[in-house]
């Protein structure tokens, strides 16, 4: 029993000492993590069922995000980080019923994120709080899938892309040092991103399962978004012009991952 007690004490001492061994506070590091972002958007779509009109929130920034970041701490407290992420946007769905016509809409995004930021760290061993503040740039596409049923089934897929989304991001997190090189991290992040696509294109159109893209003119298929345009009939062979609109991408979320110090 004496030996068993000592083993328990030794285990407790090792754990307490192990937790106080921090990842090094200076130098280069790499982080790998993933998380989920909740939308903070300001756009809505209506969902109509007869005379009942319902509001459906629309935010392309919500969904799963995977991240890889490279960073460098200039001293125990200040550093810089460059993050690369991929947003697999969650689907926003609505259903409209007008008499015998039923329309199902699905909206989602697929975006690559680039996130340079400044890191402010407490520089503590063991449990080390930190904060980040920086820019976020996004490039990718927005997808709108539409299916409406009325004396047949029509399916359409529209992609919006072009241009860059720009915004700011911040985070507050904690690192749990496991060894000199390795640490876990958990952070609450916030992204204030706005994206205005430059073009829209119908990429698929089927009626009762048969391809029907050839029925669409260029004007039906393509739309160009601009800051200003002259409203005149340019014919069916030219894309339609519309004013640019900002699409909500802002989000707040939680990220978890590991950090490796070189």
């Amino acid at each position, binding site marked *: *029993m004496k030996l068993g*007690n000592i083993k*328990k*004490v030794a285990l*407790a*001492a090792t*754990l*307490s*000492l192990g*937790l*106080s061994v921090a990842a090094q506070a200076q130098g280069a590091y790499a982080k790998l993590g993933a998380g989920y972002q909740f939308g*903070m*958007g*300001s*756009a*809505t779509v*209506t969902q109509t069922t007869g*005379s*009942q*009109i*319902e*509001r459906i929130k629309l935010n392309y920034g919500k969904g799963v995000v995977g991240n890889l970041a490279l960073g460098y701490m200039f001293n125990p*407290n*200040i550093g810089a980080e460059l993050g690369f992420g991929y947003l697999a946007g969650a689907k926003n769905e609505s259903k409209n019923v007008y008499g015998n016509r039923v329309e199902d809409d699905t909206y989602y995004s697929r975006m690559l994120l680039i996130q340079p930021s*400044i890191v*402010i*760290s*407490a520089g*503590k*061993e*063991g*449990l080390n*709080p*930190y*904060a*980040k*503040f920086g820019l976020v740039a996004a490039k990718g596409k927005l997808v709108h899938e539409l299916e409406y049923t009325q004396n047949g089934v029509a399916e359409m897929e529209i992609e919006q892309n072009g241009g860059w989304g720009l*915004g*700011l991001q*911040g*985070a*507050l997190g904690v690192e749990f040092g496991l060894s000199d090189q390795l640490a876990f991290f958990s952070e*609450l992040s*916030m*992204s*204030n991103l*706005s994206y205005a696509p430059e073009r829209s294109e119908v990429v698929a159109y089927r009626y009762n399962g048969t391809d029907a893209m050839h029925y669409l003119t260029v004007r039906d298929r393509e739309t160009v978004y601009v*800051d*200003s*345009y*002259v*409203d*005149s009939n340019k014919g069916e062979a030219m894309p339609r012009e519309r*004013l*640019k*609109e*900002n699409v*909500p991408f*802002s989000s*707040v979320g939680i990220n978890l991952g590991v950090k490796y110090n070189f």
Partner: protein
Amino acid sequence: MQVTFSVNIFAASKFPPKPYMRNFSFLKLACVTTFFFSFAAISSEAQNKYIKLSGSYHLGLDSNPANAGSGNINSGGSTTRNERVGINYGKGAVYNVALGYMFNGNIGVEMGLGYLKGRKLTTESRYYYPEYYITETNNYETYSRMTLLQPAVVLTTGSGKLKPYAKLGMLLAFGTIYEKQYDALYDLSREISAEYSGGYGFGFQSAAGLTLQANENIDFFMEFTMHNLSYAPEKWMITGAKENGADMMYKYEREVSFSDEFFQDYNAKGEPTKITEAHRIHLPMSTVGLGFGMKVNF
């Protein structure tokens, strides 16, 4: 923090505690103490209360598009130019006072109270009717007046005269958004004033800044702030309507309530019979700003 063992080692023994068992209690205490002091660096520094006064200017990050148009209108066809104007109600000056408390040299909390004096945003459209030699003008202006509540967690490096810091927290906004539409065509004019009110804006805020110590009690600071915010009003209400200078409030539906779900009746032509409800809207107020201020420690 306290460490407790899940097994009562004394309960397993049939014999009373021996001297080495009493030593084990000391070792247990030593482990607990070691564990506790492994976090000592986080909690060993002096606590500190402070008050901050600051002013900042914010630029919009997202916006609702408004159209500023111009051109000629003919009965046989028209050529008009449409220009996008971004409307963001968070743009403008923010005046802040904040109370803060540092638990130690690195971590603290802050509660900010701010006033947003939103910048007046305008659009103007002009259309010329060459067949009648008249011009139609449509002018629109809007601005916000909001009170902001800003609780936040503060992280600072805790040493030196020049200290970087960062904040992350929530943002609540209460207030009103005002708008005015003025239309004129030949000898006719119409002016309608309205406001969005009720409800609240909810979002998050973060900031990164630098503090410069002037003396033991006073610091000056500069910070970049990001507001991630949208405002969902409860109602839109016409507060004034004039045609050719005469009051015409009786002609207009005065109030529209916003909700997540409502029922709309239609007449035989498929037109809504009465518009007093609409689905809830979120007005964009996300911004980035630069601010300066003074901090008094006590």
